[in-house]
Each structure stands twice: as structure tokens, then as C-alpha cells.
């Protein structure tokens, strides 16, 4: 057991390392940040939601930086696009932290976080399941077929266009800014990096080549997560350094091991498995808000 100075509670050291290692493993396996599994896991462990959300961001910064090191060597980062997404992301996370504080005061934070998780986990999980089953049956899904054809999207018609040599694009800067903004806000409220939303959006909306998508999204996630850590530490003071250190340790080791194992597995099988995990997790959140509570009253205010 180790006492967390900001969360003001003791946690089982080995248990936290196992959980963060497990989440890191899954994230390394499928190439997502894993914040969307880590934060709910911490809340289930009894860590107060604001501490879980804010502290989770520091673990995301660690794993994404580790990933960028690898991606930079492969020249798989579109820095210009990454900067643009990050500018949007910084504005988004500032609004997100502000909203986070408002919701905390109103006592609705837990509910909003639960609902966001419910919708996003079910949505992304469902998509992953559908996609992997389609691949397993030897058919490409609709989205991928569209992607192969050179169809112009909104991004190509809006004003303020800019060249992105590494991605081979000439598109408006408005969609990347808006996308970054939305993901930044989500990162601050939910304690996630947002890679699981950013990656599909970059492929289907911005039409970026798949090989630069992961590295570029990691860059945006790193910038936004770092900013969220600093903003949360000054605005809500809910970052627990001891918990953060434990999460980083377990997370980075797990991620590297996961990446290793992932290399030897079939992609669609991994995705189907993750999709199942996400859908199952979303059912847990659904259960919480739909089933009549046994206790009609809840405590709010104070610090949480």
C-alpha cells in the first residue's frame, strides 16, 4: 500500500502497477493511447474522478512521447499538420479545463464524464468490431473503399488552404483546427489523449496518408496532454504526482511489451478484441446511469 498525497487515499502499489501495465500493454498492442481505459479503471479503483482524469493526462504524455521517439525515426510525423492540430488542441484544452471546473462545482462532472465515455466507448468499440469482422470475412468496409478513391471533402473546399508536403495535401486549415479543438476539450474533460477519435478523423476527414497518421496524432496528443497537466495543476490542483509516477512506470513498460506482442498478431483479431473490451466497458457506464440507484442522494461540492 502507498498513500497518495493529493488523492488523500492509500492504494495497493502492485495493483496500480498491474492496472497501468495492463492498460499500457493494450495500448501498445493496438496503437492507441489507452487513456480511455486508464481513467475509468482508476475511477473503479476508488480514485476520485477529478484526480483520475487530471493524473491520467500525465501518463498519456509519457506514452505518447515514447511513441513519438519511435515514429520520428521512421519520419512518420507531419510536423506542420501536428502544429496546426496542437494549436486547436491548446485552445480546446483550455476551454475543457474551464468546463471541467464548472462541472465540478455544479456536481455534474461524474455524470457528464460517464455519458461521454458511454457514447465514445460504444461508438468506437462498435466501429472497431464492425471493421475487423468485415476484414476477417475478406471484405473491405465502406470507409476504406471511399478512402481509396480521390474524393474531395469539406477540407478541400474551405478557404485558408495550406500545403502539407509530408502528407501530400493542400487543404484548408479550418478542419484541422476544429478537430484539434474538439479533441483537446475531450482530453481535458475525460482524461484521454483522444487518439482514438483523432486517428479515424485524420484518415476519413482530412484524407491523410495512413503512415503519417499515428505519429502526427501522437504529437498532438503529447502537446495537449502536457498542457492539460499544467492547466489542471494550476486550476483544480487534482494531479497526484505519486499516482502519476506509478502510472507512467507501468504504462510505458506495458506499452513497449504490447507493441512487441502486437507485431506477431493479426491486426483484425487485436482490433476485434479491443472493440469487445470497449463495448463491454460502455455497458458498465450505461448500467450506472440507467439502473435506478439504491441511494437517492449523493454528496457533491467540497473539494470534489
Amino acid at each position, binding site marked *: 500500500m*502507498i*498513500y497518495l498525497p493529493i488523492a*488523500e487515499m492509500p492504494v495497493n502499489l502492485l495493483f496500480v502497477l498491474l492496472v497501468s501495465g495492463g492498460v499500457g500493454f493494450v495500448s501498445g498492442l493496438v496503437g492507441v493511447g489507452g487513456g480511455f481505459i486508464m481513467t475509468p479503471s482508476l475511477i473503479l479503483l476508488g480514485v476520485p474522478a477529478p484526480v483520475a482524469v487530471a493524473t491520467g493526462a500525465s501518463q498519456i504524455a509519457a506514452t505518447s*512521447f*515514447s511513441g513519438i521517439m519511435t515514429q520520428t525515426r521512421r519520419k512518420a510525423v507531419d510536423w506542420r499538420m501536428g502544429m496546426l492540430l496542437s494549436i486547436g488542441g491548446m485552445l480546446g484544452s483550455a476551454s475543457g479545463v474551464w468546463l471541467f471546473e464548472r462541472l465540478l462545482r455544479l456536481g455534474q462532472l461524474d455524470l457528464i464524464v460517464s455519458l461521454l465515455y458511454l457514447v465514445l466507448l460504444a461508438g468506437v468499440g462498435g466501429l472497431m468490431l464492425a471493421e475487423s469482422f468485415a476484414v476477417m470475412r475478406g471484405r473491405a468496409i465502406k470507409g476504406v473503399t471511399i478512402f481509396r478513391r480521390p474524393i474531395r471533402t469539406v477540407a478541400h473546399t474551405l478557404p485558408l488552404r495550406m500545403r502539407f508536403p509530408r502528407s501530400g495535401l493542400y487543404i484548408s486549415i479550418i478542419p484541422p483546427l476544429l478537430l484539434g479543438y474538439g479533441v483537446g476539450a475531450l482530453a481535458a474533460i475525460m482524461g484521454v489523449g483522444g487518439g482514438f477519435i483523432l486517428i479515424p478523423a485524420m484518415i476519413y476527414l482530412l484524407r491523410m496518408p495512413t503512415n503519417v497518421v499515428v505519429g502526427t496524432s501522437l504529437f498532438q496528443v503529447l502537446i495537449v496532454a*502536457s498542457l492539460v497537466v499544467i492547466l489542471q495543476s494550476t486550476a483544480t490542483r487534482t494531479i497526484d504526482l505519486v499516482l502519476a509516477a506509478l502510472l507512467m512506470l507501468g504504462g510505458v513498460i506495458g506499452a513497449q511489451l504490447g507493441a512487441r506482442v502486437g507485431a506477431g498478431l493479426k491486426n483484425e483479431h487485436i482490433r476485434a478484441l479491443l472493440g469487445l473490451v470497449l463495448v463491454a466497458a460502455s455497458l458498465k457506464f450505461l448500467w450506472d446511469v440507467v439502473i435506478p440507484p439504491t441511494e437517492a*442522494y*449523493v*454528496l457533491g*461540492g467540497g473539494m470534489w
Partner: protein
Amino acid sequence: MKRLLAFALLAFAASAQAQPTGDVASNLPAAVAEDRITVSSDYRGSYVTVFGVNPDRRGRGDIVVVVRGPTESATVMRKRRVFGLWINTAPVRFRDAPSFFAVLSNRPLRQIASPQSIWRYRLDAAAMARLESEVPAGADPAAYRSALVRLREVQGLYQEYSGRASPDRRGGLTMYQGGLFRAVVRLPANAPIAEYHADTYLFRDGRLISQQRVTINIARVGVERSIHDLATNASFLYGIVTVLLALAAGWLSALLFRRT
């Protein structure tokens, strides 16, 4: 031997803070086993032990010991079904709700003190919390108040025990020969880190005869303290340190795992 211990306690209590209330005497000798509880990385909660002696030679009267944490405002909300979802609605604010409250007595509190005394001397947690905001139309303020106490009881922050402690209980008050008493209460790990007060009351025939206040300090020490101080006094720097730690962890892992 008992006498000797009683004298030792008397000397102890003389140094303790007195808090006289009107015509109530403060000659009740009481002391805590530890007036400073330290919180380090292995902290898993603690116990507060209050000793004292009933000054009445024939041992008449009842003893009530109350351990209180700092007061804070608290909000209680009621869950209501909105579009099929259970949403927290109608918040009611309480002022001066104790963050920790334990009342220990040698027999049931309601047999010792009248409801008026319980309210006047704030001997139960509900008596301490004062309503600050309006209660929504049609709602019962008492329901919110009892919900506050019930929810805090579940968290182990509000406790009430009468009689001696037993293995299956987390606290109790035991009377010994010669008027000596000992009250023990479990301070859970989620109780706030702050200054606590242990108040001892002597009641006779339902009237308060004497009372005594002792202060207990709970404080972080070592690394826990440095981290908390940095987080509150230099929050921006604390954020930077966390980010740098994250970058170092990411960089190290990428470096280490590339070789292997």
C-alpha cells in the same frame, strides 16, 4: 496504580486547551494518546485514543467524547430520472458540516443527554451542519440532512458508538475503576489531513457538568509533505515537474527498449 495514572493524566490535561462554555466547568481531566499523527507514504489511517478521569469521587455521571475534524461546506443532491437517465438535481448546501465526526459514549447518547443538549453542544453530526441554501419546493430539509449523515457514515467519516470497543467495531468508550475512561476511534485513511479536536463532556442527570478540549494535529511528513506543498504553493512548477517526469519516462522507455 490507577490513582497514579489519574494524577499523570491530570498533569497532562492541565497543558491541554480548555474551552469553557458559560457555567460549565472545565476541570475534566482528559488527554489524547498521540496529539500528532503523521502521514507518510505508508499511511493507512490511524486511531485516536482519548483518556480521562471522571472527577466525581462516587463516579456519578456519563462521559461523551466527540472527535471533530474541520468544518466545511457540503452539497447534497438528489438523483432524479430525466429522459431515462439518473441525474443529480436540486443541490442543497450545508455550512459547517464536519469533515470528520465521531461521538463515543459509555451508554446510548440519547439516554445521557436531552435532544436540546445534543443540539446545543453539537453532539451529533446532523446538529453541526447548518442549511445554507434554499431547499427545493416540496423537498424535506430533514431528508437532505439525514442523507448527508448517512452518506458520510458509509464513508466511515461519521461514527457513533456507545459502550466499550469490540473487535467487530471500529470504536468505543470503556469505563474503568476509579472513574478512568478510555475512548478509541478509528480515523480512516480518507479522513482529511488537518487539525482535529477531541472534546470530552461529563453529563449528570442529563445536564452538562464539565468539559475539556484537546487538539490533535494530523500532518503530512517527508515526501508526502513536499509533494503537497509544491502542489498547493507552486502549482505551476508542480505541473511542469509532472510533464518533465512524463517526458523522461517516455524517453527512457523508448531508449531502453530499442536496444533489446
